[in-house]
């Protein structure tokens, strides 16, 4: 399940959603809003998404992970809108019988999300400037 959310992400509930009696391992990645980037102090940020394409890309990435790795379930939720320092910006969770596949799939998903899902970060800096990150 891939989802964009304009509300707080509830990691505990999402983790329970990956439960499976055959699951021995669950690996979760949380992306948190840092107070700095590239040496500049960040106060807060906004995420903007191209919703339709983000949804199809997100679902495709999860399907790829299920094909490539011996996992039981995978889920990714990404925030949009205004976030503060420390907020949970993106959550990826994977359950599997064994931990190797869970680690590899979780890493694969977050790497692919960061490179392919059309979501953009606008950072607001302590000096009053702001800027869209287009790495």
């Amino acid at each position, binding site marked *: 399940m891939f989802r964009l959310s304009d509300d707080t992400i509830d990691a505990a509930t999402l983790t329970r959603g990956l439960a499976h009696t055959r699951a021995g391992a669950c690996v979760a990645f949380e992306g948190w809003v840092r107070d700095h980037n590239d040496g500049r102090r960040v106060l807060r940020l906004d995420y*903007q998404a191209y919703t339709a*394409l983000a949804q199809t890309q997100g679902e495709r990435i999860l399907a790829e992970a299920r094909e490539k790795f011996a996992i039981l379930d995978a889920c990714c939720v*990404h925030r949009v809108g205004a976030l503060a320092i420390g907020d949970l910006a*993106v959550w990826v969770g994977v359950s599997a019988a064994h931990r190797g596949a869970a680690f590899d799939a979780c890493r694969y998903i977050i790497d692919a999300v960061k490179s392919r899902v*059309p979501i953009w970060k606008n950072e607001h800096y302590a000096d009053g400037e702001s800027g*869209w990150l*287009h790495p």
Partner: protein
Amino acid sequence: MKYRLLYFASLRDRAGVDSETVESFAADARNLYAELRARHGFAMDADCLRVAINGEFAAWDRALADGDEIVFIPPVSGG
């Protein structure tokens, strides 16, 4: 032909709108971007962007059809 454009991130800031409908003779996204870049003063080269047509990534030289929704995708920074 008429095309529907959606803008995101720095392209949206530069265009000053989040979407617009344009009339154009451009037959593919590459020519359409060149035209809109000139009009809005977009800083980014097409080489830095990807293009999506009707909600899917597409090739820059794919022939456009009347009514297509076209989105120029700046490098993403989610996560």
